[in-house]
């Protein structure tokens, strides 16, 4: 008897449960559908400019009709791409020559700085760090006028050499910040042990710090590569179409009142390929760089 009532109760409860379960399930399903609809909507919005770039870059005179502006090309022409490539190719080479060495040098210096500022602190080192960090936030407009003077006084030629100097110097704060935060996670005991063994500051760096620095270097190199590749401000002040990086060449290709949109959009795509590849292959670290550029840990 008692078991029977218990069974009945159980059955009643589970029926109720099932009812509310299915209600909850429907609600959840609606929520999920809504969520994905929203996510997809935003994917379309975000990719819209990319769609325009791609279709327009392949359009020739046959597709000049503005009423077809949002349609796929009738015939896929390569004229725009050819023109963009011949215009941008020399500057692409210069940009590689500029960006790779400056990223490597500022990353190396940043690593040394981050090491000193996290593991060999000295009185006032925190103030020094904050003073260095401030260099990351200044609007470069606030130093530009005397900077043009200083660079020419130093005898550094316009174009790639002066831009390399500037990317290294003004990249130091962020590289230092990223490495300092990164090394904060390396146990102090490791450094202490090496010190006890009589290793000096550089030996400790070489034997303890450098071997664990790879992830930090990846983040910093990606960050420096991307920001130097995409820089336009310094390039505008310190180079010309003849000796400047790809952003300058692209701004000349796309600027002016009468624009060849097929060529300039093809050019925009060409100029974006290197950073896009880096982003696709190493996106995880890219986000890491963004984080360390902001949240201090």
């Amino acid at each position: 008897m008692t078991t029977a009532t218990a069974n009945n109760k159980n059955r009643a409860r589970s029926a109720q449960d099932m009812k509310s379960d299915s209600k909850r399930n429907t609600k959840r399903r609606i929520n999920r559908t809504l969520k994905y609809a929203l996510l997809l909507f935003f994917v379309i919005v975000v990719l819209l400019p990319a769609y325009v770039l791609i279709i327009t870059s392949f359009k020739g005179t046959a597709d000049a009709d503005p009423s077809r502006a949002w349609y796929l090309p009738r015939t896929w022409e390569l004229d725009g791409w050819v023109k963009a490539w011949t215009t941008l190719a020399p500057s692409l080479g210069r940009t590689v020559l500029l960006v790779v060495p400056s990223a490597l040098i500022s990353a190396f210096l940043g690593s040394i700085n981050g090491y000193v500022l996290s593991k060999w602190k000295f009185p006032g080192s925190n103030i020094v760090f904050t003073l260095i960090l401030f260099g990351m936030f200044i609007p470069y407009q606030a130093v530009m006028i005397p900077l043009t003077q200083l660079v020419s006084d130093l005898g550094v030629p316009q174009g790639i050499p002066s831009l390399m100097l500037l990317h290294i110097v003004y990249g130091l704060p962020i590289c230092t910040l990223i490495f300092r935060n990164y090394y904060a996670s390396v146990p102090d005991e490791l450094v202490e042990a090496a010190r006890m063994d009589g290793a000096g500051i550089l030996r400790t760096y070489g034997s303890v710090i450098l071997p664990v620095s790879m992830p930090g270097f990846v983040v910093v190199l990606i960050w420096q590569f991307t920001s130097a590749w995409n820089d336009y401000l310094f390039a505008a002040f310190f180079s010309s179409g003849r000796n400047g990086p790809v952003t300058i060449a692209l701004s000349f290709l796309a600027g002016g009142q009468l624009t060849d949109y097929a060529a300039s959009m093809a050019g925009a795509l060409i100029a974006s390929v290197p950073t896009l590849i880096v982003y696709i292959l190493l996106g995880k670290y890219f986000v890491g760089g963004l984080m360390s550029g902001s949240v201090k840990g």
Partner: protein
Amino acid sequence: MLKRVKHWGPGVLLLAPTMILVGIFVYWLIIENFRVSLTNQHTAKPSNKYVGFENYSNLLADPNFQHSLWNLLILTIVFLGGTLIFGFLWAWILEQPAKGEGFFRSVYLFPMSISFIASGVVWRWLLSSLQTTQPGGERTTGLNRLLDSVGLGALQNDWWSDPTWGIAAIAVPAIWQLSGYVMALFLAGFRGIPDELREAARIDGCTEWKLYRHVIFPQLSPVMLSAVIIIGHMSLKLFDLIRAIVPDANTYDVQVPATLMWVKYIGSDYADAAAIGTILLVLVALVVIPYLMYTSRAEKR
């Protein structure tokens, strides 16, 4: 004493190159720039006559410069508002584990990896001001054409070609490009909230709204502050995007201090250019210095 020097010396020595470089290229140049801004160096011909704050008072009285400050204010408000709204919304949707989460995250973040100059090319086309209802309207392209063909023709507008609100149109591509970044910041913030905290709140009978209001939002406020600082100071410096979208450097409609400074530089008016640079620095410093002090104090705690 000697022992102490031996202890710290090597560190200071290793840091010395950076301290010297930053000392010269940041601090000394800021002072030097300020000095130039107090002279009458208005032409390419060197001139060092001290004029005090005359350039500043002239600039502040100049309707062109006043307009650039107005534009900067509108740009910053719209840019900040837009990136915070989309960044938070995306992070909030993606916060619970979902299928394809990584894909959505990557798509939303990708515009961040390309330059303002490259994206400016396509946004210049998208934001073309010609409308189908105007004379010559059959030549309409860009967003106006799209709006017209999906039946939203009434939403067509001049975009950036408007002296008062045109600058808000420049914020659109900027929002497109940086909302993903703010999303990434908020996602990191969400991840930093311990699950136990939510569980505890739920057990205590918190409703979802109360959970957000009293637990999640307070936990996210440091991230929010970082986002405001980063986007805010990017907005103050924004230059490339405007130059890429608006071919004529001297366009009154979307002039901001950073572009006006370029115009002055091209015109060899170095004193005015330097003064604008200093004004920008003061604006950025007002935002950044309290933030740096706040974070270094938070770190000590």
